[in-house]
């Protein structure tokens, strides 16, 4: 029995000590991937916007105000104070949820140009990476009371009405929301990373 305890403690120590170094690497990878996705979204969105006329743009802006993003149900810190107050695991879980929420709709985004087709697979990879990060940082195994964090959000119905005349609007909405969410994930991951590795000074 003593031996089992000893082995378990050693294993736990090993497991716990590893993620410190692996976590940084994983974080770096995740951050870079998210950044790439965000840039991709930005590019697509700007392309779309440039192809529109000003009048349409104004209308779309109005539409955009009226329609909300699908990920709005996911509660996430919306300012720096909140973000810094949140623990790392919460940030990671929120990021995971955000990425997961876009896994399905990104397929509808993918159509036509090449950059769009890259979104879906990259999202999958990002989700995997964040999941790993969660596993690596689940020391305390804090279970959120908000169990909905790990649940899939009912967003499928929202995007299931195609409508050709609204396709442009939908694309615009999707791209705008996607871009914003990616930036959120990027920010959360960066803050989490900097918090976990203070020696990096987060400037490099």
């Amino acid at each position, binding site marked *: 029995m003593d031996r089992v305890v000893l082995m378990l403690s050693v294993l736990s120590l090993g497991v716990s000590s590893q993620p410190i170094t692996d976590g940084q690497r994983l974080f770096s990878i995740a951050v870079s991937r998210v*950044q790439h996705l*965000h840039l991709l979204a*930005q590019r697509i969105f700007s392309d779309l916007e440039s192809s529109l006329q000003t009048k349409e743009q104004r209308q779309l*802006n109005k539409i*955009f*105000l009226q329609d*909300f993003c699908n990920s*709005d149900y996911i509660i*996430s810190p*919306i*300012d*720096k*104070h909140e*973000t*810094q107050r949140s623990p790392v695991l919460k940030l990671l879980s929120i990021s995971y949820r955000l990425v997961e929420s876009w896994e399905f709709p990104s397929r509808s985004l993918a159509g036509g140009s090449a950059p769009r087709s890259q979104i879906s697979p990259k999202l999958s990879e990002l989700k995997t990476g964040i999941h790993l990060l969660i596993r690596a940082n689940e020391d305390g195994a804090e279970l959120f009371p908000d169990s909905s964090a790990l649940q899939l959000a009912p967003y499928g119905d929202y995007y299931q009405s195609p409508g050709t005349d609204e396709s442009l609007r939908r694309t615009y909405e999707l791209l705008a929301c996607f871009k*914003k969410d990616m*930036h*959120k994930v*990027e*920010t959360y991951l*960066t*803050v989490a*990373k*900097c*918090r976990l590795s203070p020696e990096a*000074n*987060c*400037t*490099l």
Partner: protein
Amino acid sequence: MRKVLEVILLLLLLVFTHAKGTRYSPPGKPALTRCRSPEKETFTCWWEPGSDGGLPTTYALYYRKESSDTVNECPDYRTAGENSCFFNKNDTSIWVNYNITVVATNALGRTFSDPVDIDVVYIVKPNPPEQVAVTVMEDKGWPFIRVSWEPPHKADTRSGWITLMYEIRVKLEEENDWETHLAGQQKMFNIFSLRSGGTYLVQVRCKPDHGFWSEWSSSSYVKVPDYFHREKSVWILITVFCAFIFLIVTWLLHMNSRSLKHFILPPVPGPKIKGFDKQLLKNGKSEEVFSALVVSDFPPKSSNYEDLLVEYLEVYIPEEQELMLEKSMDLDVSCLKSEGSTSDSDSGRGSCDSHTLLMHKCDGVKEGRERQAEEARRHQKDWKEEASTYSNVDSSPDMSSGRVKTWPSVFSPLPRYSSNQQGSLETAKQHYLSDSLFRPSSTSSCHTQPGHGATEALGPSYWECGLSNKQPHLLHPQGQAQRQLQAHSDDNISSIGRKPTPAGLPSPALRSTEYVEVQRVNEEDMVLLQPVSGRCGDVEGYPQVPHGEDYSKVKGVDGDNMLLLQREVREETGNCDTPSTVATTQKPTTCIHSAMPVQGEAVLGVNGYVDTATVFTLPTY
């Protein structure tokens, strides 16, 4: 009353407005120009007011967040300056769309601006970097500039809330072009390749990963110290050194220009013919030109030829031989040594010039001298009587004193010493020549056969012996002749005839030849040859009086290998009676031919002289 006052005021206002006309109007439409957030925590919006319509206008900014329907007014109109609205941290939400509208209000109305949707995340424009420090540092003697800075104090890069990228630009003070470098997220940058002694301006700016570039920081001045002097001095030294070497090389080339020119561009040899006058050719007179080419002294005449030949006359008799000669007075082989090969490579010499050969032969002869001496004595008398028609007798009585080179001479008939002065001299020379010719070829044998008879038995060796036999007798006249010869010959003929008496004995290696002169022609058409000797008179110092006939010329050789000598009628004086028999010939009177058994062919020379070198092939033994 109050109502009347209010109506009056309203009327006045109306009047005023009507009176002023279009001066007053509702405010123009304001426009939001920009909204910026310096650190993604707060943001500020600026607007541009429109026309105020002549009336004091107030502006108000209203915003609405996307998630709520409440319209809020700008919390702070002053912090950011005129026509601005500042949203502090509490009022700022990230990833939230703001719908902002500016309303201009004056007495006559209010005007709304176009609404603007912003997301704070995308309007970030940080402040310029701070604490820009520029220092000059050195790397192995090469200076460089190190620029360091700090992010704007508001931007929170430490927590990772905002990530900034930096950019630097540098330029020389007097130039206009900036050199920009992207520094990434680092806060330090090195600039190399600086100009010595130049003053540089450095500026830094930053940008968030998704946002706008900040303004450039204020210029920082830095002066690069002069460090190229050291390099320049080295280059100056090298240049001076190279110039120096170049000068030396140029001077050397100048000094040796001629030789170099000959080396690189060798001069083409032009045709130069001696006696060829180009001018004559140009004039067109070919005859004169070609006549000039004719050398006067070609072909060489006999006299010159003889002179030439005699020049190489060499006779050598060592002392030993002389003594022996004196003693024996008889057979003494004098081998004349011809030394012509050393200095002149005459074609006629060949192997005949082999000194050793001569020596050997002479030695061989010497061995037989004893035998021959007896015979010589025996036949001496006969020999004296007989006319030996050997054309040439060369003797060097005084060999010890000198040598006489003998040219391979033409085997010519006997001269007559005493009778001939110059002529005999010439002939003597020629005889010398002929003898030398004769000698090499006849080293092995004595060719002379002074007539038929006893001398024949002697054989070739006897010739020499015979000669030596006659030596004592002949020496004197020979000496005379030789003296004469010497007088006319060149240096090579030395000490011939110095001694009147045959004191100089020819060495055994040397073979002497004797001059035999034709005494007379007897009735039988025989030429009597006599050795030129002292007995024939006081020949010493005696100018050669030509006596008798001069049979120095060979007429030809007949079929029986007989040498036909031609007589030249000369003044004849009385001389020695040393008759010698000569083989009879066919011709009687004028031409007395003395036949000599000739083996081989006789080649007539120009003057009728026979070249013995080719004529006689004496039997060797």
